[in-house]
């Protein structure tokens, strides 16, 4: 009761004082009634004010009472200067909000532990070494027969879990026409148990659901999917779902919050690893092996135990390698097993965005510092105006600490208000940015709750911010010398010096923000203007699937039917679209000998595909209906450069290792380079081969129709074509429709996002730094008006006045810009992987932030200069 009542009493202060007074009054009356002299009775009490204070201090928490008084006073101060307070709060709110939003994103993508028991004991087993492409890489993929051996080797120290890469797959709860998309993941049957997960409904897999290849058609839904697709209907359990050609029975729902192990992807449906067709193949890597250490087991010994069977397996596999050069095989054997902590999961998106998010973090931190410097300057200027008040407080007995508290409380109020507005901003901004990490029709799945982690971060940030911009003014306020200040002899220069150095700091940070933003914008621009080598104008890609593998002639029939549709210009077929992320590669051999260690990429295409894509021929001819693979091939110029020293290869033969044999191809045509894999790497050597297979066993069950439409908006035809396909042949259907332009843009989505954020933060930083500079110049003119008046009175020209007012500040801007340049250059090294054809050292990259800052500084200086030259010397001097 005691502390609470004391705290409560703080807020019923007047009432409390009244009660104390009334009690004392009644005492005196009582005394008088008992015959005491009223004057004497009153005197016995001493000063009533002291009495009341003594009793009050007992009755309430003194520290809280002084805080309350400071808060009330601080609020009055803030309300007195509504415009400046609002400006300070808004700029801080923007910065705090941006920081919190960035934290939410970074946390969701990289830091938040998976909702499993003991995430700190979870690792992913990866292989580090030089990959077949010739560059250093860490591969997390593994093959199942090896996984079995590894699991047996460490079964006493750790549990191994196979968890496949997520894939967006077609599935149906009814007939084929009602196919829908869902994220599917193959997982070890014992995964749920090892993760300590309990079903939300039904049951989860166990080890016995994952024993025999192909024999366990059971599925577990994620809670999220169950909610979204079935509205949490318990009847969903027991239903069957068809994926590919297998009918699965839904047996249960995973607990809420668990959506797989890939941050950025929310898994909808889990199936046992034994249902993966590659589970028996030792040449197919399709999952990540996770290692969950048993309690008290160290990672290193487990890794040592895993190395033995791994190395033996590598040796064994390398014996089957045909057509690979000795160095490629040596690299394969030198791959090292490593354990990567995976308590926060692991995903490709995580790897793609790690440095981008770090860059975002740096940007928002810099903007926050700029905003803090701004507010600190503001408070400093106000402290100058309040120097007399502070001096008065000190002279009537306020302690130093009490003054620090007074100013800090005011700062904290600013910070808290800013944090509230900023929290709202972050609440909106984090999902906004998250929605732009992936294309709109397939958004990233990021868990962005406003939980204790975010709140703790926000609180810590607010505290930091309060100290950052509040401490310096507070200490300065507390160190007033009452005698000097009350006489009006404060030293104005020391305060101006602090404000000027804050300006230099602001400009330095602003320069870095502009510089980094410029790099991102330039990168995005270069990538977007990168030529693809083909024309994606009015191009629609229809990923189509057939119920079972179909001969090429049937695919052609469907293409003919589509070609006859109104609004369709041309139709061709390829195995998959360019720049879709798919790819098939292999080494190239001439006369049975590998040419070099460069991988070539292959794409099956129909006759007319090159024409439809507008990839021009340099030499030779297109495929004919009777060309098959292997046999004929059309290669690009990069291919000719890499394997034929740039000579025209038309008419020559090459071989490609295929299983244990070789496939031979005769080059019938040479075409210009076009982008196959992505926009960043140099164009890969590419061989286009006929879709028609010489071996009927190789017939595909999925291909992509490339449709060039007549209308400017190719998507207008999408619905029609989707319906048209099954009409052409019943066993065919469309799985996915995208425009080629969409695929091209998808390649640069991260860069465009960074460029957008760069623009935004550059604008904010420039604005804040400009406001800061304006405030400081304005303040210094106000302070120096006496001096300026005297100068003018003795004949100084307007130009001289302007120079004297702005010289110091511009010196600071220059110093800040130089510091920012050094800082920016040293930071740029860490974001090199995000840049494309942009050198941080380029003069252009440095000139434009400098110009922008200079321009902003000039604009910010104008009002102060005008104010300075308009000073009327007579009026000013008479005032004093």
């Amino acid at each position: 009761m005691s502390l609470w009542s004391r705290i409560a009493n703080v807020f019923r202060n007047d009432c409390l004082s009244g009660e104390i007074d009334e009690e004392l009054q009644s005492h005196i009356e009582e005394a008088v009634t008992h015959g005491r002299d009223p004057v004497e009775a009153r005197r016995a009490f001493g000063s009533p004010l002291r009495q009341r204070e003594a009793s009050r201090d007992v009755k309430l928490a003194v520290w809280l009472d002084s805080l309350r008084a400071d808060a009330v006073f601080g609020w009055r101060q803030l309300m007195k200067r509504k415009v400046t307070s609002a400006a300070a709060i808004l700029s801080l709110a923007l910065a705090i909000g941006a920081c919190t939003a960035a934290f939410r994103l970074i946390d969701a993508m990289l830091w938040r532990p998976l909702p499993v028991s003991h995430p700190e004991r979870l690792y992913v087993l990866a292989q580090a070494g030089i990959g077949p492409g010739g560059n250093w890489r860490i591969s997390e993929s593994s093959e199942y027969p090896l996984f079995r051996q590894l699991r047996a080797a460490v079964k006493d120290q750790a549990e191994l879990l196979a968890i496949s890469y997520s894939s967006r797959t077609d599935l149906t709860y009814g007939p084929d026409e009602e196919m829908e998309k869902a994220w599917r993941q193959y997982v070890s049957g014992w995964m749920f148990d090892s993760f300590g997960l309990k079903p939300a409904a039904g049951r989860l897999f166990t080890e016995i659901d994952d024993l025999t290849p192909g024999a366990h058609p059971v599925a577990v839904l994620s809670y999220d999917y169950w909610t979204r697709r079935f509205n949490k209907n318990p009847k969903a359990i027991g239903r069957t779902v068809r994926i590919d050609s297998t009918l699965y029975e839904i047996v249960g729902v995973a607990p809420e919050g668990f959506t797989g192990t890939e941050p950025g992807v929310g898994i909808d449906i889990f199936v046992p690893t034994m249902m993966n067709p590659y589970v028996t193949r030792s040449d197919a890597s399709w999952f990540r092996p996770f290692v969950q250490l048993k309690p008290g087991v160290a990672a290193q010994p487990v890794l040592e135990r895993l190395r033995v069977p791994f190395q033996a397996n590598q040796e064994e596999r390398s014996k089957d390698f045909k057509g690979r050069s000795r160095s490629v095989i040596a690299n394969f054997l030198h791959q090292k097993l490593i354990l990567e902590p995976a308590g926060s999961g692991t995903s490709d998106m995580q790897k793609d965005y790690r440095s981008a998010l770090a860059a975002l973090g740096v940007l928002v931190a810099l903007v926050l510092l700029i905003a803090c410097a701004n507010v600190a300057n503001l408070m400093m200027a106000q402290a100058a105006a309040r120097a007399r008040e502070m001096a008065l407080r000190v002279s009537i007995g306020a302690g130093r600490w009490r003054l620090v508290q007074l100013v800090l409380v005011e700062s904290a109020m600013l910070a808290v208000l800013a944090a509230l507005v900023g929290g709202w901003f972050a609440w909106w901004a984090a999902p906004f940015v998250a929605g732009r990490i992936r294309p709109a029709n397939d958004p990233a799945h990021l868990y962005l709750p406003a939980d204790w982690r975010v709140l703790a971060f926000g609180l810590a940030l607010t505290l930091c911010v309060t100290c950052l911009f509040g401490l310096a003014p507070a200490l300065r306020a507390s160190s007033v010398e009452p005698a000097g200040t009350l006489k009006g002899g404060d030293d104005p220069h020391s305060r101006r010096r602090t404000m000027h150095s804050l300006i230099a700091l602001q400009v330095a940070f602003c320069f870095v923000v502009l510089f980094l933003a410029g790099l991102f914008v330039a990168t995005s621009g270069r990538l977007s203007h990168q030529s693809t080598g083909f024309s994606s104008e009015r191009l629609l890609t229809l990923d189509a699937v057939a119920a079972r593998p179909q001969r090429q002639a049937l695919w052609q029939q469907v293409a003919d039917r589509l070609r006859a549709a109104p609004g369709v210009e041309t139709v061709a077929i390829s195995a998959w679209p360019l720049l879709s992320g798919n790819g098939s590669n292999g080494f190239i051999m001439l006369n049975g000998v590998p040419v070099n260690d460069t991988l070539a990429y292959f794409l099956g295409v129909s006759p007319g595909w090159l024409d439809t894509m507008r990839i021009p021929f340099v030499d030779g001819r297109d495929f004919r209906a009777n060309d098959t693979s292997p046999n004929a091939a059309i290669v690009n110029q990069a291919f000719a450069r890499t394997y034929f020293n740039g000579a025209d290869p038309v008419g020559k033969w090459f071989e490609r290792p295929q299983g244990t044999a070789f496939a031979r191809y005769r080059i019938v045509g040479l075409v210009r380079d076009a982008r196959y894999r992505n926009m960043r790497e140099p164009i890969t050597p590419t061989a286009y081969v006929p879709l028609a297979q010489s071996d009927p066993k190789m017939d595909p069950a999925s291909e992509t129709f490339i449709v060039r439409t007549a209308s400017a908006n190719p998507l207008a035809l999408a619905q029609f074509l989707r319906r048209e396909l099954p009409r052409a042949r019943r066993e065919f259907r469309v799985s996915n429709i995208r425009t080629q332009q969409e695929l091209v843009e998808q390649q640069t989505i991260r860069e465009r996002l960074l460029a957008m954020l760069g623009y935004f933060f550059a604008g904010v930083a420039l604005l804040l730094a400009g406001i800061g500079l304006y405030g400081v110049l304005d303040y210094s003119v106000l302070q120096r008006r006496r001096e300026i008046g005297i100068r003018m009175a003795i004949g100084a020209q307007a130009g001289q006045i302007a120079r004297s007012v702005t010289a110091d500040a511009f010196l600071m801007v220059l110093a800040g810009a130089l510091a920012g340049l050094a800082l920016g250059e040293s930071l740029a090294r860490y974001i090199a992987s995000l840049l494309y054809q942009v050198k941080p050292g380029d003069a252009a990259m440095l000139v434009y932030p400098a110009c922008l800052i200079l321009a902003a500084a000039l604009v910010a200086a104008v009002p102060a200069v005008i104010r300075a030259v308009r000073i009327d010397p007579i009026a000013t001097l008479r005032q004093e």
Partner: protein
Amino acid sequence: MSKTDSLQGSLDLLVLKILSRRPGLHGYAIMTAIKDRSGDVLRAEEGSLYPALHRMEEAGWIRARWITKENGRRSRIYDLTAAGTKQLDAEESRWQEVISAVDRVLRTV
């Protein structure tokens, strides 16, 4: 030695004891009680009595309430709480210890 404030830290004990015998006294009555019972030897000054009362109230040893007297004026009267009874016991035994300790010193030196 002045009579005033010669309570030497025993004010709490006296107030609690008086309230335990006669509940529902106001400040003035407590003051007079201390004066009368001690045969005019001890006096609680207003300046220390009220802060002490308020302190003990905050500590939860005594409880205060307002009553209205016949003349319409309000008066604040105090009662002992359970915690106060316990505190009284503790203070009493501590006082006895001090007394006997002082006694011992006086006898032996």
